[in-house]
């Protein structure tokens, strides 16, 4: 472990909206933010990379479907394959699913409406860059704002994800209890976020980068960004599971 600040890259795609807030969140939590451009095959020496929220390529065809072929994604895939931390928030989650770096897919909300509100999410595993050091069962308050956040996967794929602990966050009430009324988009098994098998790639629909500043509301995003900064400086572990 070195004393230097972790370098966290934040990719801007055409149509990204939350890249600025992600950069601010990294800085607020003591990291060095590295703005990255979708058209460059360069991750700027980042220790970890965030794919932020927004509407890349106008959500044409499917959310994330075009962005996954952006030049920066070739580098990102190699970075992820090397075991480095990658997080996708909202549209970033959709891009990672389209790229096959995360299982499942995101479709329109079951309620057929855009949802914009605070939600509580329960940490299901500490094995991800956004939950390292957190305890399973911990509840964090963060906002959601999406029209296409319903997580779906084939039945056998869901079984495999549950069995291998790939579910990272679930929508819940403030005490951590599950219920349809707490699930803002009808996601299967109330899934708000998932990780890959290796445990270095994580995606979620809620927005921790909007829940950092206590002057602006709940701060459920702070422990997640703290976890990311910590994960960023850990030696590359093919061994993170």
């Amino acid at each position: 472990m070195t004393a230097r600040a972790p370098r966290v890259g934040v990719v801007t795609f055409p149509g990204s909206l939350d890249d600025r807030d992600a950069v601010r969140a990294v800085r607020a939590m003591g990291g060095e933010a590295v703005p990255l451009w979708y058209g460059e095959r360069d991750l700027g020496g980042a220790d970890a990379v965030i794919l932020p929220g927004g509407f890349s390529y106008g959500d044409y065809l499917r959310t994330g479907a075009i962005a996954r072929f952006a030049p920066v994604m070739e580098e990102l895939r190699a970075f992820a394959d090397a075991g480095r931390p990658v997080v996708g928030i909202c549209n970033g989650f959709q891009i990672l699913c389209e790229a096959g770096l995360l299982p499942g897919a995101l479709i329109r909300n079951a309620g057929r409406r855009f949802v914009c509100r605070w939600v509580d999410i329960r940490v299901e595993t500490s094995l991800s860059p956004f939950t390292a050091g957190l305890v399973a069962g911990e509840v964090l308050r963060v906002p959601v704002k999406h029209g296409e956040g319903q997580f779906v996967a084939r039945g056998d794929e869901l079984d495999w994800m549950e069995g291998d602990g790939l579910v990272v966050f679930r929508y819940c009430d403030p005490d951590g209890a599950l219920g349809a009324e707490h699930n803002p988009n009808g996601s299967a098994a109330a899934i708000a976020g998932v990780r890959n098998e290796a445990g270095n790639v994580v995606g979620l629909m809620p927005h921790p980068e909007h829940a950092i500043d206590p002057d602006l509301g709940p701060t459920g995003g702070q422990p997640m960004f703290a976890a990311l900064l910590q994960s960023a400086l850990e030696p590359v572990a093919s061994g993170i599971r």
Partner: protein
Amino acid sequence: MEVSLKPGLLDPQGKAIEGSLPALGWSNVSDVRVGKYVRLVVDATDLEAATTQVGDMSRRLLSNPVIEDAVIREVVEDAAGNGRA
């Protein structure tokens, strides 16, 4: 080609249309599903090559096999002899 959400997955567009039909007097309609129609011109040596290519494009970009089914409806040659799918 046609791309549609897999059976069982909620199709919000279909639901919205289904919900508005009774107001127009058609109350006997159910299971409305809305898909996508993709028409493209492929410059290929023959129909078979064009069909193979469209299948590849479908799997890599035009559809997401996790949530969608894709069907190539028709592959025809245009007057100039170019493959048109």
